[in-house]
């Protein structure tokens, strides 16, 4: 597993300093705490969690947009922040991101041709306009914007949300990446378009052998996109459960994952009516500025063990093969 890993996070933490009030001092807000993760080549890892839990920060750390406060992020075994220029350039080209909002991820002053050809020219993949045009048409065709000739000289504002997202996907493919972080890539789109974009991403993954980190708050999307891969459930900057998607969905171990899955409405009203929702001890998410001691889920957890959960931080336990959970209920199993 380790040698196949394309991206590894090694005890990564990220905190931001925030000022409180005029006279208040600086406070440390820990967004990611001691995160270790390994993503294998060709794998799909879905990162799920509610908003504000650190999913996007994790994505930005992986693509190198922000530096971790401590810990290392390894790309093909090398720490990205101690790479030399050449290695860093290769890493930059190999790891791309697809943003959530297709309305702000495309520069409104450029035509689609310019958006897609800039990286091609910059990295010497094409030499002149006709080569660039050919490559851009090919990229547009790949993301199902057909006929590509109709789109190449359009401005982003002339396209719909779904079409824009396809252009953003095409842009992430310009440099033949090995790894793509899809940060809520479908959550801003119309429900009717979501599935076709997901299908497109699945197809590109097969065709181009790209590894995906699929960040979403929507378990159904994670289930659909990452059935063959793994799911990691994040809560307040920590991964609480990680394992193969079918097993996490069908047999959730962590109380938080269970609560999340319970919250999904079923298509059959009879089933929904008969479901007994999990009784959380508190409905409020603790503030990142004031994280509870011990397991960060303990103030809400219905199964908490007094004296343990609010004192110690649980390790990752492996009650099933490849299915890890960070909860004292599974200690020693």
């Amino acid at each position, binding site marked *: 597993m380790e040698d196949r890993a394309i991206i590894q996070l090694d005890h990564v933490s990220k905190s931001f300093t925030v000022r409180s009030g005029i006279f208040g001092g600086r406070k440390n807000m820990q967004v990611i705490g001691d995160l270790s993760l390994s993503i294998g080549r060709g794998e799909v890892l879905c990162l799920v969690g509610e908003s504000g839990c650190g999913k996007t920060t994790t994505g930005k750390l992986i*693509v*190198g*947009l922000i530096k971790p406060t401590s810990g290392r992020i390894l790309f093909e075994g090398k720490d990205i922040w101690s790479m030399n220029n050449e290695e860093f*350039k290769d890493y*930059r*080209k190999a*790891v*791309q*991101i697809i*943003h*959530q*909002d297709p309305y*702000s*991820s*495309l*520069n*409104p*002053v*450029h035509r689609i041709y310019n958006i897609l050809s*800039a*990286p091609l020219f*910059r*990295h010497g993949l094409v030499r002149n*306009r006709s080569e660039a045009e050919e490559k851009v048409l090919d990229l547009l065709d790949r993301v199902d914007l057909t006929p590509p000739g109709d789109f190449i000289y359009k*401005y982003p*504002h*002339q396209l719909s949300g779904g079409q824009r997202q396809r252009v*953003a996907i095409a*842009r*992430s493919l*310009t*440099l033949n990446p090995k790894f793509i972080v899809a940060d809520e890539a479908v959550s801003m789109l119309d429900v009717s378009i979501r599935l076709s974009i997901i299908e497109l991403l699945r197809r590109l993954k097969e065709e181009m052998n790209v590894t995906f980190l699929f960040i979403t708050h929507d378990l159904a999307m994670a289930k659909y996109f990452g059935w063959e891969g793994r799911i990691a459930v994040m809560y307040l900057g920590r991964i609480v459960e990680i394992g193969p998607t079918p097993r996490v969905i069908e047999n959730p171990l962590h109380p938080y994952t269970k609560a999340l899955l319970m919250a999904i409405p079923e298509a059959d009203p009879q089933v929904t009516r008969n479901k007994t929702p999990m009784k959380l001890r508190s409905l409020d998410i603790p503030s990142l500025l004031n994280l509870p001691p011990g397991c960060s889920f303990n103030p809400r957890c219905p199964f908490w063990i007094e004296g343990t959960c609010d004192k110690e931080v649980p390790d990752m336990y492996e009650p099933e093969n490849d299915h890890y959970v960070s909860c004292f209920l599974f200690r020693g199993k």
Partner: protein
Amino acid sequence: MKSREIVKRIFWEPLVIISRDKAGLIGFIFLLSILLLSFVGPYFVKLDTEVKLDKIYQFPSREHILGTDNQGRDIFSQIVNGGRDVIIVAFLAGLISTLIAVSLGSLSAYAGGFTDTVIMFITEIILTIPQFPLLAVLAAFVRLTNPTMLAFIIGFLGWPALARAIRSQVLSIKERDYIEAARVLDLGRMHIIFSEILPNMLSYIVISLIMAMTGAVYSQVGLIILGLVPFYGHNWGLMIQLAWTRGAIFYKGSIFYILSPIIAIVLFQWSAVTFTRSLEGIFNPRLRAGE
């Protein structure tokens, strides 16, 4: 790209866009006429310098379209020959202040931290100094022997307000997702500033340039009217000063002498400001209808 296509994109398309906004089109036509009059006109209408004592303060006639001045010279020839320097000084001053504002403003926003603090501190100090009195004092100390010198002084004092506006725009644009995408695609800092950030502000920058030009027209004409700029030659500002001190104070008949340069300046300013309406459409693709 074929050369015909380039000509079409650079010259023809902007004209089509200009013609869409009626007010902007009128401004454009006036501006173009004034520019032609001031830069091409002097080759056809020579400046009348001959003193004709029998023709003082004549009303407009076929021979003298705008009448004559206190020495019997043709006013129209003075208007035609007096615009060039005013416009050149205004353009240079506007260009200098806009260049300084754009570079310092975007540097300040992009670099952040200490650089930002220092640049903004200097900007605020200059912003606090009242512009025109300082110009007047400076003009008294610096020997202004040519228009370029004047343009530099006006330009060097005119940038702070725009610099702050540019800074806040860059601060907002640099956080957008497409800038992040450009960073991840390793497009380089120069590309990000000049190709991703600045084009988004281009219409604003060009409009500010024109506003800076109109500001510079008032500054220089003001200095000349006050007699603080002893530069020779002939221009609208000098005309107003002469018309005022030699004529308007004493004679009713000098009305055409003093009004002509004032109207010329007002028309120039108005057409420039009105023309900016069309510029929005040229630089902002989202505003182009029907494409």
